[in-house]
Each structure stands twice: as C-alpha cells, then as structure tokens.
C-alpha cells in the first residue's frame, strides 16, 4: 500500500509539474518560431522600406509605420473609454452598490467578456458605424473611433473584474478607520481604498489594454483597414489599419517563406513582444502589491 501511494504521488507530482512548466515551454516555442519566420524580414526588406509610410505588400511596399500607428491609436482610444468606465464600474460594484445588486452585477459584467468579438464586430458594422457617421458627420463610420469603442467594450470586463477583486481585497479596517476619522464615503474611496488597491488596479488596466491590443476580428471588421499613418489631430475619426487585422487579412494569401510571409511574422513578433512586455509589467505590479501587503502585516 505504501509503495502504491508513493507511486501515485510520483506520477501526480510530475503531471502537475509538467502542466506548470508546459505554459513556459509553449511560450518559448512560440517565440522561437516567430523568430525563425520573422527575422528573415530584416535581411530581405531594407530598413527604409520597413520604416516607410506605404503598406502595399503585393507590390513590395512593407512600411510598418501605418500599421503600428493604427494599433497605437485604436488601443489608445480604447483605453480612453475603457479605463474611466471600467474603474468607475469596479468602484461602484465593490464600494457603493448594495450586496444584492453586487451579486448579479459582477457575473453580468463578466458575461459581457464572454461575447465573441466577431459578434461585437457585426453589431459594430450594423449599428455603431452608420450611427457614428451620421452623429459626427464623418465621411465614413468605419474608423479608428468605432474600433476604439468596440475594443473598450472588450477591455471593460477584464478591467472591471480584476480591479473589483483588487478593491475588494483592501482590508475592511482601512475603510472603517477612514470613516471613523470623519472622512466621507467618497473621500474614503478616493483617498484610502483606491490608493491601497493601486497596483491591482494598474494590473487591471494593463491586462485590459493587452486584451485590446491583441484583438483582431472586431477591429478588422470595423476600422476600415486603410493603411494611413494616423498622425493628424483628427486621425481618430478616420479609417486605420491595425497590425492584428493586417495579419488576419493577409496571412491566408501568402505563399510560405515568401518575403510577405516573413514580414507578417515579423509583425506578429512585434505584437508578441509588446504583449509580453505588458504582461510582465502587470505581474511585476501584482508582485509589488503582494510584497507591500506582507510588509504591512509584519
């Protein structure tokens, strides 16, 4: 009996260990393949071509700047909408709403996160884009703004869920202490609870933005995909082409190991590095919060 138990222990320990490490192995393998398929770009395409403003791959114009700019402006726009709305929702659910409302509000917000982005994209084409065009008198509703609003909708559930958890984990005694000192409810939220949950909130924002950067389907359907460098003040109201939409739209067409194929993988490599950076930043913030919490307790 004793040996069977040891044997079971051994298998389980290794199974769990393998599951734990498999994620790391996969990330490393993915990174390796991205490097393998993406790096030939540097040899095949001149730097001046990569840094030009013209993206037209079937005639060998591989200017990445419009795509990078498109991703930045759409993500930035999404953050503008998602951060205030997401954080306010989190504060309301965690601090203000009565317990009864809270019990169904959070699951509902999280259910919003489960809507497939292609469905959101469809709603965007049918409802959001035509109305934006009429409302703001734009040449076309298929614009960076429409993409930003849609992406905000995708990022908000992530932000709300994580920020609410962070606010919720602030010890009750903090709030009681603040209220006992005569602070109003708003002062308690803004000056005590919120700063105490700061790193968790930061993590929520970064993961929300990470979700927005990587989103593909909805953006491809609604941003118009015109590879224009968005540097003008009103660029938010014009069509843009994001990096993810470019990969999704063009990957099916390219012959394996052609220059175009390598450039698309190079774009994928850039996206991978950016989202890896965001995730590392987010987990560093989370780690710092834990250390700080430990310090307070000791």
């Amino acid at each position, binding site marked *: 009996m004793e040996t069977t138990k040891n044997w079971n222990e051994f298998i389980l320990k290794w199974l769990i260990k393998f599951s734990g490490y498999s994620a790391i192995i996969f990330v490393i393998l993915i990174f390796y393949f991205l490097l393998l398929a993406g790096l030939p770009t540097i040899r095949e395409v001149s730097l001046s071509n990569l840094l030009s403003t013209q993206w037209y791959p079937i005639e060998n114009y591989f200017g990445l700047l419009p795509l990078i700019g498109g991703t930045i402006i759409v993500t930035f726009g999404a953050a503008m909408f998602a951060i205030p709305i997401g954080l306010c929702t989190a504060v309301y659910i965690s601090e203000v709403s009565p317990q009864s409302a809270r019990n169904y509000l959070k699951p509902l917000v999280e259910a919003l996160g489960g809507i497939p982005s292609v469905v959101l994209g469809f709603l965007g084409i049918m409802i959001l*884009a035509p109305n934006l065009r009429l409302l703001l008198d734009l040449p*076309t509703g298929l614009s960076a703004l429409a993409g930003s609003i849609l992406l905000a909708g995708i990022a908000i559930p992530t932000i709300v869920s994580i920020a609410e958890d962070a606010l919720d984990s602030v010890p009750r005694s903090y709030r009681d202490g603040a209220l006992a000192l005569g602070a109003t409810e708003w002062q308690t939220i803004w000056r005590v609870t919120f700063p105490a949950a700061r790193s968790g909130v930061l993590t929520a924002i970064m993961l929300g933005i990470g979700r927005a950067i990587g989103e593909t389907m909805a953006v491809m359907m609604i941003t*118009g995909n015109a590879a224009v460098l968005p540097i003008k003040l009103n660029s938010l109201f014009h069509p843009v082409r994001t990096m993810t939409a470019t990969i999704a739209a*063009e990957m099916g067409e390219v012959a394996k190991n052609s220059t175009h194929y390598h450039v698309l993988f190079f774009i994928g490599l850039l996206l991978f590095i950016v989202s890896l950076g965001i995730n590392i930043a987010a987990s560093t913030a989370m780690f710092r919060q834990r250390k700080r919490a430990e310090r307070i307790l000791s």
Partner: protein
Amino acid sequence: MKNILYIITPLIFILLSGCIQGTESTLEITATPQITSIENLGSDTMVNLALAWAEKYHGLYPNVEISVTGGGSGTGIAALVNGTIDIANASREIKPEEIQQAKDNGVKPVEFVVARDAIAVIVNPTNPVNQLSIKQISDIYSGRINNWSEVGGEDRVIVRLSRETNSGTHVYFLENVIRMGSKTDKTLFSSDTLLLPSSEGITAETRDNPNAIGYDGLGYVTSEVKMIAIALDSSCPFILPSAYTVNQGQYPIARDLYMYTNNQPSGAIADYINWIMTSEAQNIVTELGFVPISKH
C-alpha cells in the same frame, strides 16, 4: 486514492477524445470506400458559383464530394502551391512569382477558364452620379479626385472601398482600371482606401453611406446599391454591366474566371472540370449573374 481518480479520469477522457475522432474518420473511409472528395478553395467572387456547381455535380454523381471554400484568389493559389487542395479558384491569372513558388514546391499549375465576370462599380442609390469614364474611376481610386462634385455629384468627400489585397478582384481592378491596363504605370490605390474583408462589407457600406464608391463582381451586386455606367473614355458610350453587354464586348471591365489544378487533372478532378465546360454547368453561370464562356 479516490481523489486521484477524480483527477486522472478526466485526463483519460481528454486523451481518449483524441482517439475517438481518429477512429471515426477511419471508419467512415472503410465503410464507403468509393467516395472521392475534391478540395476546392479560392476566389470569393467565384464561391457562390463554385458552390452551385459542386451541389449540382454532387446531385448527379453522389459519390463525388466537393468542398468549396472562399478566402480570395491569392489564398486559393497559395493553398494550391502549398499542396493542400485539388482545385484553386481564381478571378485573376496566376502571377509569375506564384508559378515560380509552385515550381519550388514541385507543383505545376494548369489553367482553365471556367466563366467570365463583369466588375460593376457601385455607389449609394441616393448618389446622383450615374456614369463615369475609366479615367475618372482611376483618378478617384488613386486619390487625384477626392470630392463627388468633381465628377458631377454633390459636394461630398469620396470614400473609396476596395476588397483586401488577397482578392483577385482587387488585383484586376488595380491593373485594368486604376493603371488602365498599362504595365509600366506604378499607380497604387490611394492609401486611404478602405480595404474590407468581404463583398458583403462593401455592399453594406455602400448601401448605408452616400459618400462611398465600391466595386464588386456583377454576380454580387444587390438591388440596394446603384451600378455606374462606364465608358472606356469620355468619347465612348457609357455602358451598364450585364451578361449581354459583356458578351457583346461593350462593357469595358470584364475578365475571365479561372480554375487551377496541379498538373493536367485526371480521374474525378478531370471529370469535374470537363463537366463545368458543358452547357448544363454553364447555365448555372448565367443564373448567378456571371457570363458563360461558351458564348464568348
């Protein structure tokens, strides 16, 4: 001990589920060995046509299963080059680079002209513009004309719509309309052209937006948008696209539609392609708003 079972049982099920799928597919093959399947992928312009052909053919010869997928001409040819499909549909000719890539992969593409298609230029029904010359369309899409008032319309910004670059229609339009057939002309689509991933996207935006101009295969034009009459140059008559005007050679933007196979086809694939050339299959071409090859 019981706890371990809770963990291991689902794991076993997960592992087994892979096996189940595997055995199922082999069973299918052994149970009905005479079924031949043909993989057909490519041009979105041709996807409805290819589907109609495949359905009709499957009705006639139930032992041949043809799976049809869209994705764009470039996608189809790339798949043929990579050896993953039997027939590629393309609304443009295969490019020399693609032939070279095919050669490198040991694939030899063989071309068949299976139908013809007119490309209609479409605008919103409220747009007062009814006719344009090829030169004007070229100027619009290359960014030299930016307002509808320059071609006799209202004072509105022109929003240019196009299919993605993997579309054969896109390439055809670039070479024959924007560059007006000149090989040395290096004009491109204006960079603010909206590249939409589907024909439906173009129709939807043109229907809703009075600023828009788009183009699409004649078979895809719905009654919700307005077709533009086109002239080769302003001295020629302006012609609306239809099967009749294409067959008469009057409508200036018409093209052949192709199927490509690896090597000269044999067996089921050859039978299928031969059937497509018959009048029975070409009648379907007419029904779907394309132009049959027999008359041209």
